[in-house]
């Protein structure tokens, strides 16, 4: 049986960050990915400045092929039902519009790790001193590889997480996020910005931005609703209210399941024994749905935790749960109303943009946000968010009892 130091499941940005740390430290690292690389990834591709800095400092300058057109994004514009629009520039300057298919693959290659693509994870068995990982190559044989540690970096529908926490998927609300691509007839929306709508009738997560000469119209809603109907409604709304005239959607629409609840209520799944979870698979997702920067950072921390556990002969699960706290703070703070009001947890200044509005507009916006939040009432997150916010205020941290 082949033995390696670490197996990383998934060939995502989180996997690349973890692999970079592990390979640098001289650990034999194998990445297994179920799809053929480079693989397609559904994503807005708008990376935060923090994530961009991480990419450059760790992997070097981005090749042009890793970017969509427009290659950069200046910030985010919030739109409200009262027709007030609030543009906010990122603190760090413009950020990359990543072509996830190539950017992820580039980062994986730059990590220097060995990669086995078109390979599915079948099972994990943690024996305490090592983990036996059974994998199968597409059209090939099933093999078992022995690893000292395993990192699950396989996204919101993580197979590794399903193995460790079979009940997880039933315990949290799932959303469907889908996007369609349109040829543009006329689009007054500024293509330098990512546009987001706080509108309860449009859905839980509604966005639009330019990509490679087309306009993306994206919708997010509770799983079970109708994508076609939702999308049509948003498209008509954009035409009626913002003058966005688009041709019918091209056939290459796409969608996926998202778990953007855990970060909001500080509920993370970080792994057990010698198996760690990271990235969105562990519940890391920034507000406005940007998961790439916290995937990079949590991925790197998972790799650092393994190095720390080996060099100090400590259990990796405890080490990871200690070292990941800073990233949990960073991510959960973005959803924390007290931090949003007073702590500037985001990379654009929402309070300043709000205060720049006239008083009547400010009142309209606050009212609109409140109405939008009522959309989430059915999930009963209010008390949990309030409790987490107060814990952060008085204890300086979030309760780790909610990290599984």
């Amino acid at each position: 049986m082949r033995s390696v130091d670490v197996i990383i499941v998934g060939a995502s940005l989180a996997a690349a960050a973890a692999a970079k740390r592990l390979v640098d430290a001289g650990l034999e690292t194998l990445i297994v990915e179920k799809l053929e690389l480079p693989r397609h990834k559904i994503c807005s591709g708008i990376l935060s400045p923090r994530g961009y800095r991480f990419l450059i400092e760790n992997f070097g300058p981005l090749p042009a092929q890793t970017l969509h057109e427009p290659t950069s994004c200046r910030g985010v514009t919030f739109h409200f039902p009262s027709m007030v629009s609030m543009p906010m520039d990122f603190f760090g300057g413009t950020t990359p519009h990543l072509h996830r298919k190539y950017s992820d693959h580039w980062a994986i290659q730059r990590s220097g790790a060995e990669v086995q693509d078109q390979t599915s994870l079948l099972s994990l068995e943690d024996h305490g001193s090592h983990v036996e990982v059974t994998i199968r190559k597409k059209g090939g044989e099933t093999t078992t590889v022995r690893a000292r540690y395993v990192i699950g970096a396989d996204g919101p529908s993580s197979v590794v997480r399903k193995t460790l926490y079979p009940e997880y998927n039933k315990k949290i609300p799932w959303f469907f996020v889908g996007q369609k691509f349109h040829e543009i007839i006329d689009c007054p929306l500024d293509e330098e910005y990512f546009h987001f709508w706080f509108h309860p009738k449009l859905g839980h997560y509604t966005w639009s931005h330019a990509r490679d000469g087309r306009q993306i119209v994206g919708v997010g809603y509770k799983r079970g609703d109708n994508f076609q109907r939702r999308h049509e409604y948003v498209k008509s709304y954009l035409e009626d209210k913002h003058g966005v005239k688009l041709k019918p959607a091209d056939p290459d629409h796409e969608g996926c399941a998202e778990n953007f609840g855990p970060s909001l209520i500080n509920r993370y799944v970080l792994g057990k024994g010698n198996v760690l979870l990271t990235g969105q698979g562990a519940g890391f997702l920034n507000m406005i749905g940007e998961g790439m920067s916290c995937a990079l950072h949590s991925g790197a921390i998972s790799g650092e935790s393994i190095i720390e556990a080996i060099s100090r002969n400590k259990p990796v699960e405890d080490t990871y749960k200690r070292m990941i706290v800073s990233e949990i703070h960073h991510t959960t703070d973005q959803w924390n109303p007290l931090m949003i009001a007073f702590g500037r947890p985001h990379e654009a200044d929402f309070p300043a943009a709000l205060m720049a509005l006239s008083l009547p507009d400010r009142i309209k916006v606050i009212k609109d946000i409140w109405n939008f939040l009522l959309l989430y009432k059915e999930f009963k997150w209010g008390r949990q968010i309030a409790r987490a916010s107060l814990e952060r205020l008085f204890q300086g941290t979030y309760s780790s009892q909610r990290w599984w």
Partner: protein
Amino acid sequence: MFYTLELPILNIYCGLILEIPEIELGTLPPCPVASDALQGIPRQQTNPSRWQGANWDEFVTALQQDDIEVRQDQGSKGIYLTDAGGMAHGMPNGVVLARSAEQISKLLIYAQNFRVPVTTRGGGLTTEGESVAFGGILLDMTGMSQVIGIDKSELTVRTEAGIFWHRLAEVLRKDGLDYLSAPLNMTSSVGGTLGVGGIDVNSSKYGCSADQAISLQVVTPTGEIIECSDEINSELFQRVILGYGQFGIITVATLRIRSYTPMHMHYFYYRSLRTAITDLHELDKNAVCDYTGILTMMDKAITLLVGFDSKEKEKLFFKKWRRRLHGHGELIFSIRLASYYALHPWRLNELLFLYRRKKTLFPDLQPAHHMQDGAIIDRTVVFSRAVWKHWGHQHMVIPDLATSVDKFVDAVEAGNAVCKKHFRRYTLYCVGIKLRPDHKAHYELSSIPPDAEGFSYGCEFEPVLEDAHYSRDQLQSFKNAIYDVGVELGSSYYRFGGMMKGYIRRALGNKVVDKHLAMKRKADPAMILNRDVIF
């Protein structure tokens, strides 16, 4: 399909080409994102790619045939996994313990031929991974740590460069001698310090540690063994001193020394950084004291340290200078501090921290067993122990700025604001560095700011991390924010750390860096020696 990757990479998948361009060391390709991405800051990859191991086996065989031992077992390599910064982790392919200049010469000749990177390490007290090997050879210089000879009449010492300053002090002390100035740290090596600068609380009198070198034996990146000084092979001397290990490995150094004297220390307390710095400048300009510096607890308790080698000088200070200082004694300062916190009761935790810190730190700066007639009898030991005990942590986070006299207050205040934003508890440590006009050429690529005349001033910004865990990126973000202050003010970075690859062009400009890069390429054709540190 199993595959491993070598650079440059050109992979073809499904008919689409993903090209990863090879980037020549020292160059910065244009950013394809936007000119104002990351506010137009030309960031660089500062966490190097691991060397892929080409020709490693042939290289090791050649070394072994020439009787050079290469340790490749995990145990030997693992102890060099990180440096004092504790953030960069890299594993060499093999470790060589330095034995002689001849052995190092052979090693470098083979490394050039086989294009294997060599990273030198003394005490490993770098903070940005400069002494961490991301593959290749880790050359441990501590194998060369003997004092070769002391000339008591000329007041010089000739020593192997892998020796720690503390050990050198021990040897010199037997003859009633002492080095001039060196980092207050027991495990920094002479060679490493001469390569980056080195400061002490008497640097305002003697200059940085690198300025006390009279001559050096250097092994160049191509394996020549050359003796150099201001008189012979002066160009090499200029490049190697404060040269970040780019132009050669210092194997032996001749240093100026002095007679040993105990140190009489006094502390004065301030509430304003600006006022304390103004007083520090005045004392240094007028050469009033033998030792000066500022040490703070946040910006709440600012302590001006003054020290003397003789009682006469101490008396003169109290007679002529004490009343000109704006600082207070302990009692008056305590009353002022108590009044402040009485009006700010919600900051009680901060007051308790200050009290706790004072109660534990100050006795360690004047321990009874190292005191004689009110003087500290071994400042190296006293300060080094205090540094590790009270500032030591798994991560040594000490970004720093060095500026001319005029810019120093602004730099400290801007850095202080950065500290406040990132950490609840931190300290600042400021000292002056006397510059030698005849060493201007030495300073060209160094941390000494180009606009500094007479004195340069440096400040370290040190978070008190205690038991809290911060991610590598949080600490790196803090360091970057401090370094960005340096760029904005057109200043530089002193000691070790800041003058790293990602900042050198922004701090010194393309003209200076390109000039030195061209010299580096000429001196080190395969670019194997301490790569990725600044180029």
